[in-house]
């Protein structure tokens, strides 16, 4: 699934992780979770995969995961056991500056 755009909702093929693409680089990318390709929410999981123990750090709901460049950002909308990766490189949790509540 290389044609992911901002707003795309994705799900893991090997765990309960679900996410939404918040930002993405112009060139396509391969998004995986737990080592397996992610598919669109509503689609069947990619067949034949199991949770890769090397990518089983887990995702947390509400956290944002980014690649090294920061151009790719995925918001985790449902937690799961797998770790997110793009083009093979693990995504890391974005550390947000704590803002005072202003509303």
């Amino acid at each position: 699934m290389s044609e992911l755009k901002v707003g795309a909702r994705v799900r893991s093929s090997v765990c309960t992780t679900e996410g939404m693409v918040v930002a993405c680089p112009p060139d396509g990318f391969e998004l995986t979770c737990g080592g397996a390709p992610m598919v669109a929410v509503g689609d069947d999981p990619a067949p034949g995969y199991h949770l890769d123990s090397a990518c089983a750090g887990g995702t947390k709901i509400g956290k944002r995961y980014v690649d090294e460049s920061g151009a790719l950002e995925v918001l985790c909308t449902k937690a799961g056991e797998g770790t997110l990766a793009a083009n093979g490189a693990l995504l890391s949790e974005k550390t947000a500056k704590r803002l005072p509540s202003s509303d």
Partner: protein
Amino acid sequence: MNVMMLLEMAAGAFDDRVALTCGGQSVAYAELFAAAGSAAVEIRAADAAQVALLDTSGPAVPVALFGAACAGVPFVPLNYRLAPSELDALAARISPALLVTDAEHSETIRKNGQPGFVEIHESASFSSRHLGASEQPDVWDMDPDGVAILLFTSGTTGVPKAAVLRHRHLTSYILGAVEFASAGLDEAALVSVPPYHIAGMAALLSNLYAGRRIVQLPQFEPGEWIRLVAAERVTHAFVVPTMLARIVEALDAGTDARSLASLTALAYGGGKMPLNVIERAMDLLPDTNFTNAYGLTETSSTIAVLDPDAHRAAAANADPVVRRRLTSVGQPLPTVEVEIRDAMGQAVPPETRGEIFVRADQVSGEYLDQGSLLVADGWFPTRDGGYLDEDGYLYLDGRVDDVIVRGGENLSPGEIEDVLLGHDAVADCAVVGVPDEDWGEVVAAAVVLHTGRRAEVEDLQALVRSQLRSNRMPAVIAFREELPYNETGKLLRRIVRAELSADSGASDAAQRPEETP
């Protein structure tokens, strides 16, 4: 992108916890999520292109907002104090719309043949009908360009413009400013700003996403606000400056400040905060963290904040540069760029006044009928005057449109108002430009005196002349019982300008003393 995404996450994580309280009624996150789906079915069946709400705060507001989002149509909160003719004009612009409104308006509008509204639903039955739903909503449209909210802003010309806020603007703001599930279980946010104010919409979205229980107060009254803070153990609140002024008045008149002991965070915005009000509030509530939030409807609310630490540092510091920060609106959010530009569109250095321009994913700058007002490279001209200091703190200086152009020179009303307010007989004032054959415009002031006090026009003029240049001196000073404000405390300058323009043509008010250039 759709704000439903935010509610789905909240419902998934917080489930049966109370999301919202109003009067005696409580609504859980999961309930609200299901209600959105149920309302969407009704909205789609009605073939409504918009969902309008004409009512005070209540459970119907989020049900209608998220129901519209789920159905893929814009939500349009309307000012419930509109005159019938004003309402008709707006209805025509958003037709065909499904309207959710109170019983009284329901009846009146139906009697008039409900032009523009395909269906009218009374708020209480609308919300109870959908809050009982059990089915989870279907997948909804994630088109980031979908319009989430249309908000009519009061223009200086009086004809409201409808700001177009798309789902991506609102979600960018929320994701950038709020950490999901960051609220403690015992936190509660008091929302007393109306749904037709951007702060009212932002408060719903941000608190739902943070997992902070919302307490709605449909009609602000300082005593009731204070009572509710104590009764619901409210920890967070957002107010506009006039509300804070009245709360401070109530505390000074004898209400025990300990009623507000649970209030750890008080944010304010939506207008200029008088320095004496925020200073007094900080004295009365030393344990409360104050945040000044600057934003516009067009920017999906907050783009800059003066945080609690900055408030305390400014209040405690003798250094005038730091002290002055208490009058600033703080620093732009990390996701927001701010630039000050001169009349030619060139960026100016710190400490130079100009127009505030802003660029961020949360900025819309688009209007229903006028289209996008963004300029090159996505910058939005806010029409707010201001300047940045060396450390990136932003200061507001009125609206660019309110600048008085006298003999080709730009005069800031705020500067003159501050001087007049320094006279101890003056309770309030508004400075505007009125047409003049020789100068183009001249300075005019509407002044409200404290009860029982007197002041002479000549004394007030002399005061301004002594502190500012003589061309700032009001040529016209008219005394008034009160100034015209809207419900959220914004001064209606165009009304003052119209009145003083009409007066100055015919009156023999202040004679203009000789001026030195």
